[in-house]
């Protein structure tokens, strides 16, 4: 930071501020705030009302005096508010989008003020099905109301109100995060100057609904799911693990699978002629499934996938260009060539609709073999265009806020690095064993095989040795 050389990259002759030696966002404190207290409950799209709502969030960088440098980052299905930096100096893994956020990075924390919050319905500290229902004193379970991407956005709007941030320089995200970013531009056009939507769609594609349904069925078929009432007893780990394995397949690509695993066997020289995990890809998926169950709530998986499936900006028969008619934001839409969950055509559809009414929109397609997860991985191919877009938008951003008071939320509960939320919901799900680092990660938990380490076992230990982070 202070010792960082002032070598900002230029694109053309325009400085975009990308440093050659980007730093780390540092130690960040997870925070929570209680919003929508009765009687001012949040009205949900389903007609239900929800409140009070705890929202877990983190911030990075400093809000400018003019309140004109705030960027809201949205997480995907299995992400959380911990988007960059570390919770404690000895954390092994930084936040899930640390490649893009930090001093000198594309979202330069020396310039911008970054906010990321856990969606409602989530299990990363915000109110969700594992939270205590104040009416009963018990966890909501599936008595939690069905929430939508629109509802997630409204909860974030309440958070911004609380923080005193009237308008955002940018809102951005990938996958479900991209849906929220698009929704923001439509729901609150006056509050959004720029949108970066990546690896996403204006309506959940059929194939994605299909995969989500298989995941939900796997969870609900697990006897431990028990109609959603499993808190305090055995969790439906098997079902959730299968759901995660299916999800993981859709986040990779044929090419990524072939290169990462091929048909390689897992620490054996020949088939075992059993149903154990002979292939590396099996071992990997089993590990991913298992480790996911340690940090994620099965009911949240049901609720969030439901929110994804319900997402359709054209619901009610409107054309997409009509939906975007009153949007004033500038858009950067990014696709990834091997993404088969949200292939480029789905992003192009968004661009096309925006163009119909001559909105400011740029489209960028990243050539990548990493599939859907590319948006979490392809730092070098993404950061230039993102930094350039943010910088160009900041130049044209003339915003005079009515109330430039960022209540630095000293009054918000700063949860300790263990990540226990104030409403106690989180600890009831994850237990004391789940560290904040475990809870990080976007859709891909990015674990790499520990090179050369022989480990063959069906149990968690063997899998962890093989695929866990060193």
């Amino acid at each position, binding site marked *: 930071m202070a010792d960082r050389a002032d070598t900002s990259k230029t*694109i*053309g002759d*325009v400085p*975009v501020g990308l440093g050659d030696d980007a730093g780390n966002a540092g130690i960040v404190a997870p925070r929570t705030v209680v919003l929508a207290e009765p009687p001012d409950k949040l009205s949900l799209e389903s007609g239900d009302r929800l409140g009070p709502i705890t929202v877990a969030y983190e911030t990075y960088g400093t809000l400018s005096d003019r309140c004109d440098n705030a960027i809201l980052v949205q997480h995907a299905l299995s992400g959380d508010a911990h988007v960059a930096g570390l919770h404690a100096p000895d954390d092994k893994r930084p936040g899930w989008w640390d490649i893009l956020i930090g001093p000198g990075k594309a979202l330069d924390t020396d310039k911008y003020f970054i906010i990321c919050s856990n969606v409602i319905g989530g299990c990363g500290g915000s109110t969700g099905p594992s939270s205590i229902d104040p009416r009963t004193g018990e966890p909501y379970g599936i008595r939690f109301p069905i929430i939508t991407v629109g509802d997630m956005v409204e909860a974030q709007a309440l958070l911004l109100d609380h923080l005193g941030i009237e308008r955002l320089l940018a809102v951005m995200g990938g996958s479900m995060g991209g849906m929220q970013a698009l929704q923001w531009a439509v729901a609150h056009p006056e509050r959004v100057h720029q949108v970066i939507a990546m690896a996403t769609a204006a309506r959940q594609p059929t194939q994605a609904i299909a995969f989500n349904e298989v995941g939900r069925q796997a969870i609900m078929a697990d006897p431990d799911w028990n109609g959603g009432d499993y808190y305090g007893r055995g969790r439906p780990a098997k079902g959730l693990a299968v759901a995660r394995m299916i999800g993981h397949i859709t986040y990779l690509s044929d090419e990524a699978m072939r290169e990462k695993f091929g048909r390689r066997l897992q620490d054996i020289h020949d088939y075992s002629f059993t149903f154990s995990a002979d292939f590396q890809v099996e071992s990997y998926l089993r590990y991913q499934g298992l480790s996911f169950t340690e940090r994620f709530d099965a009911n949240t998986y049901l609720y969030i996938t439901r929110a994804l499936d319900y997402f359709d900006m054209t619901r009610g028969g409107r054309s997409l260009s009509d939906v975007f008619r009153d949007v004033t934001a*500038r858009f*950067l839409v990014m696709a990834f060539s091997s993404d088969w969950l949200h292939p480029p055509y789905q992003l*192009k559809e968004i*661009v*096309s609709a925006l*163009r*119909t009414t*001559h909105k*400011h*929109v*740029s*489209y*960028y*397609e990243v*050539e990548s073999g990493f599939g859907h997860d590319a948006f979490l991985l392809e730092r070098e*191919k993404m950061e*230039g*265009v993102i930094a*350039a*877009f943010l*910088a*160009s*938008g900041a*130049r*044209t951003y003339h915003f005079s806020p009515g109330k430039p008071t960022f209540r630095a939320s000293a009054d918000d509960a700063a949860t300790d690095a263990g990540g226990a939320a104030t409403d106690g919901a989180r600890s009831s799900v994850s237990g004391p064993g789940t560290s904040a680092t475990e809870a990080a990660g976007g859709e891909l938990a990015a674990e790499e095989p520990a090179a050369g380490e022989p480990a063959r076992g069906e149990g968690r230990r063997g899998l962890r040795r093989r695929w866990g982070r060193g």
Partner: protein
Amino acid sequence: MRRIDYLLIEDWVPRGATVLDLGCGDGDLLAELIEKKDVRGSGVEISPSAVEACVARGLSVYHGDLDEGLADYDDASFDVVILSFSLQQLRRPRLVVREMARVGKLAMVSFPNFAHWRTRAQLLFGGHMPISNELPYEWYDTPNIHLCTVHDFRRLCSHEGLRIEREAYLRSFEKRAAPLPLPNLRARIAVFAVSRGASAT
């Protein structure tokens, strides 16, 4: 020194028009048009680094391949569609010109004239592939795969039923346009504005 073909196109583009610049590169022309003619413009470009450069300048740009056509664009959705010095690099120039005239009320195309007398002379007397300011490549590393002449382009327009609204001929990127008799022999650069004309409406 500003490129004369750009100045010419700038001159032809009506103030406040909606403009689509195909193969917009770093966005030089587009930025000029926005500044000088107050146009609402966007570009299409295939090179990732050029797209980045456009985005950095605050331009609206689409990262894509012109040879895939302009199917995502509605009929007459732009006042002007520009193809500046890229025609000769397209795999499907005829399709692109046709699409330009569909999407734009006016299509402006500039290209190096392969029938310039020096080009002819290099081939005739030198016996080698012509190299010039406008065609600066060796035959083995040229991106120019569909070179044409003033005569050829006029023929394409006639085959496609396009009406030539304006035409201008330049002796270089630097020299001002002046009336040039025998343009197919004497112009190094040709600039056309064509439309589907009355028959299309």
